[in-house]
């Protein structure tokens, strides 16, 4: 899961810093950035001074500060402020562009994170590398295994032990501006054909091996997670043929879609919901030939400097009343039936957020092997440098 | 008004102002063809500005400069028939000696054939005795050699007028004297008009056949070196050109009797037409006779030697005379008996009144008017 955005919300100081840090690292981009520069920077820095106001003590000593690694605009900003008011712990938010990048940081060590948000297919690797701890569910009373949909939670458990708790799930489809593209699209095969035809110079694919290679494979009738060299060679041939016709290879597609520089893009659920809400002619489509379904989890790094606060925040986020605000803010579907009951009807009935079961059937979860397969990484490099 | 046919350079009422500062004030000047003119004066006197107006690097604020009879207002440097030897030479560091000298010839239109350029550059380098140095880089050359390259680079273009901006200032004394002779010889052989800017009066007197003394943007005196030295037009010229002793005195109504500060009277021999009143008497150090022994009633002034500077062929004495101040006296050892006077000894000083110059006291207001004149 790479970049997720909420273009319409006014950017907060915290959000600005998140964006700024993300941009500095060179993972791609945000348009809010321009409007929020200048004085915004100073404001952002000022408001980040932690522990200025102290608040009631928790049962355990949580310290005054912790940090979380997550995705851009993936939380209700009020969540962390409320958490601080309740516990006195200021939360520093680090945002990332890809799971690979998160993994690279954790492998390098000394991240300082006490909580992070990995996607389903990476958890086995984190476990294998010994980078995450088994969760002590006794410290997470707000979590209710019974109300979770096992379809979206199973990858958090390894050998019967729980290593990660689900945050939300989602899909990877594509968004199409139907005022520009008249041809009806229903599959990834259509996507790559129209990208070379009616949407020549106007289509975007992710700068992300899992979805870009996976969707290309699917369009060719191959397995989304394939690492077979012969499959990858076919996907590479297709991608390199399409490349001259693309507008960009970039996981930050909302600005270009909103400016109608791009007419069509690979897209995640939450972005699709946001684009469609603001610009109704932009439709979100799931490939009938396949695509990705995913779950994002919360996990605690083994070397977390403040595990107590990490647990406290995770427990806080598992509270349905808190989670409902998070889902309202980021637009992604919940895995927890308690939250589903609390969500407003217009969200639950939105077919982009909660598609029919039939539409989900052809989708696959990403496989752990794609994360570390050198063949897919090299394919991506050849595609981008072609 | 000079005639265009005779004069290579003519200044007609030329004024040059930089904002509120006037560097050159209403100068008129004619330089005949083939002359060696020295513009002499202290820094800031306007001599360099005059040279740069001939070269075309400055345009007069009013008036006009003519070269070989043609008005030069608005004519850029690269269209003028003059060449300049710059202070510090301004040789092109990225070219070798040959390329430097050939530079002017390469600019000429119609183009000069490469063979011809090579020949003329070779000749020019021979002329300045740098025959074997064509391929040297500039930074490999000594100061004196660079000076010759600069000269060759200018002369190879056969200009009507050669401008020299303090050309010898960067050379040591011995090399400087050698170059002075060389420049003079070159000028005579080529018959080109030379205009030299210098603050060194010795250099001006020794090389030029026409000296123009400038001060405060104006010409103080223009004449042959000998005239300027022997008959300075005013106290400034007397001071700046050579060394001078001053005596402040009062001229009586008869125009020939001077009342000295010690109360004595001095007859200057002939009536001077400068009006009675406060007067400065100027006398060259070599015009003063120094006689050992200090009989109080002898001829001239009694004094005491305070310093002696032995110069080989001559000796300079500093003599303190009560009520009149310090005097500088040059004794020529070839005409004197050759016997040196020791500091502390009493002496008498005398001079021929006809060799003394009298200037009205107003001229003495010059700040440079110190007792011993301008040293170089």
């Amino acid at each position: 899961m790479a970049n997720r955005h909420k273009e319409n919300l006014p950017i907060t100081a915290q959000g600005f810093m998140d964006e700024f840090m993300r941009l500095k690292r060179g993972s791609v981009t945000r348009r809010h950035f321009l409007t929020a520069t200048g004085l915004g920077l100073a404001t952002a820095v000022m408001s980040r001074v932690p522990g200025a106001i102290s608040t009631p003590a928790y049962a355990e000593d949580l310290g005054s500060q912790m940090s979380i690694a997550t995705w851009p605009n993936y939380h209700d900003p009020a969540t962390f402020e409320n958490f601080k008011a309740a516990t006195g712990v200021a939360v520093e938010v680090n945002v990332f562009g890809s799971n690979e990048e998160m993994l690279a940081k954790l492998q390098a060590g000394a991240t300082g994170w006490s909580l992070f948000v990995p996607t389903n297919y990476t958890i086995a690797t984190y476990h294998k590398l010994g980078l995450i701890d088994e969760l002590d569910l006794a410290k997470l009373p707000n979590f209710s295994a019974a109300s979770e949909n096992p379809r979206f939670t199973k990858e958090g458990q390894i050998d019967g032990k729980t290593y990660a708790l689900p945050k939300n799930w989602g899909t990877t489809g594509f968004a199409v501006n139907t005022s520009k593209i008249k041809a009806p699209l229903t599959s990834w095969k259509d996507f790559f054909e129209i990208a070379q035809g009616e949407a020549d110079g106007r289509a975007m694919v992710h700068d992300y091996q899992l979805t870009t290679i996976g969707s290309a494979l699917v369009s060719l009738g191959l397995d989304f997670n394939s690492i077979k060299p012969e499959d990858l060679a076919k996907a590479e041939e297709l991608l390199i043929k399409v490349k001259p016709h693309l507008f960009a290879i970039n996981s930050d597609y909302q600005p270009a879609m909103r400016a109608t520089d791009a007419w069509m893009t690979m897209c995640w659920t939450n972005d699709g919901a946001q684009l469609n809400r603001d610009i109704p002619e932009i439709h979100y489509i799931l490939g009938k030939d396949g695509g990705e379904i995913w779950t994002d989890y919360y996990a605690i790094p083994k070397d977390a400097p403040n595990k107590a606060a990490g647990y406290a925040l995770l427990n806080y986020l598992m509270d349905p009343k808190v989670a409902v605000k998070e889902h309202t803010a980021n637009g992604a579907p919940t895995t927890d039936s308690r939250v589903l009951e609390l969500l407003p009807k217009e969200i639950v009935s939105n077919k982009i957020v909660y598609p029919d079961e039939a539409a989900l059937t052809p989708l696959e979860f990403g496989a752990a092997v794609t994360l570390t397969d050198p063949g897919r990484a090299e394919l991506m490099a050849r595609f981008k440098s072609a | 008004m000079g005639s265009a046919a005779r004069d290579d350079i003519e200044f007609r009422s030329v004024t040059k102002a930089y904002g509120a500062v006037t560097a050159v004030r209403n100068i008129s000047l004619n330089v005949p063809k083939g002359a060696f003119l020295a513009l002499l004066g202290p820094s800031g006197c306007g001599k360099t500005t005059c040279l740069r107006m001939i070269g075309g690097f400055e345009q007069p604020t009013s008036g006009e400069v003519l070269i070989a009879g043609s008005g030069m207002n608005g004519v850029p440097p690269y269209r003028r028939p003059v060449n300049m030897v710059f202070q510090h030479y301004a040789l092109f560091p990225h070219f070798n000696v040959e390329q430097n000298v050939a530079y002017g010839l390469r600019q000429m239109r119609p183009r000069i054939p490469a063979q011809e350029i090579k020949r003329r550059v070779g000749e020019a380098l021979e002329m300045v005795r740098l025959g074997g140095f064509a391929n040297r880089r500039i930074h490999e050359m000594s100061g004196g050699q660079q000076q010759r390259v600069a000269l060759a680079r200018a002369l190879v273009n056969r200009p009507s007028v050669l401008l020299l901006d303090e050309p010898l200032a960067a050379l040591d004394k011995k090399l400087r004297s050698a170059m002075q002779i060389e420049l003079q010889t070159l000028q005579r052989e080529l018959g080109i008009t030379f205009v030299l800017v210098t603050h060194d009066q010795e250099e001006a007197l020794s090389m030029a056949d026409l000296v123009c003394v400038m001060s405060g943007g104006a010409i103080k005196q223009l004449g042959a070196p000998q005239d300027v030295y022997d008959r300075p037009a005013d106290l400034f010229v007397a001071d700046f050109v050579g060394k001078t002793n001053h005596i402040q005195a009062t001229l009586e109504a008869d125009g020939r009797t001077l009342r000295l500060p010690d109360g004595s009277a001095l007859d200057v021999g002939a009536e001077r037409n400068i009006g009675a009143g406060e007067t400065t008497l100027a006398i060259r150090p070599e015009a003063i006779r120094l006689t050992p022994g200090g009989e109080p009633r002898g001829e001239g002034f009694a004094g005491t030697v305070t310093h002696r500077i032995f110069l080989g062929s001559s000796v300079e004495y500093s003599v303190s005379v009560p009520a009149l101040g310090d005097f500088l006296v040059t004794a020529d050892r070839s005409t004197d008996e050759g016997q040196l006077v020791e500091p502390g000894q009493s002496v008498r000083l005398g001079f021929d009144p006809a060799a003394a110059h009298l200037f009205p006291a107003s001229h003495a207001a010059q700040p440079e008017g110190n007792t011993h004149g301008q040293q170089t």
Partner: protein
Amino acid sequence: MVTAMLLGPAAAWLVVFLVLPFIAIIVFSFGERAPEGGYQPAFTLAQFANLGARAAAFANTLTLAPIGALACLLVAYPVAYYLAVKADPRHRMLLVSLVVVPFWTSMLVRTYAWMYLLGGRGIPHLLDLVGFSDVRLLNTPGAVLLGIVYGYLPLMILPIYVSLEKLDRRLLEASADLGAHPFSTFFGITVPLSLPGVMTGIALVTILLLGEYLIPQLLGGGKVFFIGNALVDLFLQSRNWPFGSAIAVTLVAVVVMVLLIAMRIAWRVAGTRQVDLM
């Protein structure tokens, strides 16, 4: 003793933040990628043998960097010339600071501004109003070049300005005095003598461009792939540290060569060894 004490912090800083990391990168470059990514010790030349896998990125970088530097030069030289030679000396410092001031803003912010200007709501929209429809500027090689010229302009202007400012004006007068038209003086004297500054600027801009990844990413739509982008991907996406290190070591070697060649040319033409890198 005092010198050693004064130099101590700087030397320590260099060792800790420059020498040690570089040694680490050299060590990594002979290692192997661990199965889950990262580095595992080994002694193999496999990473260097595999450099060909990024040949396209090297080729892109080694063509666009000099082209970018030259484009930068074409814009920077007249500006530097104006500042150093033509501008009123009273306003010179003000004008020079105007060149430098944009540098105080993050390169990222300035590049973002261009993204907006070149995007569909920017210049193409204005062109559309006057009848040129469907002009695409963003995510083209031209946009990348524009971003490069814009972003690196001060680095090119300043060294050229310095060498033009140091240029002895009497040389220009001497050239004019010897009959050279201002045009000939410019190309025969001014340009060769400002070459140390020009080469410094070209070296600086080229070297930085060899490591550039932001501008191709933002203004090239990720379709223009530089060595810098390859490095970012190798370290942050595929976590192939040994291969990334081998590329970084190769890049450093290329940079050193560029520097040596640039300095050699400048020395030769300007006839002096006084060529300084700012």
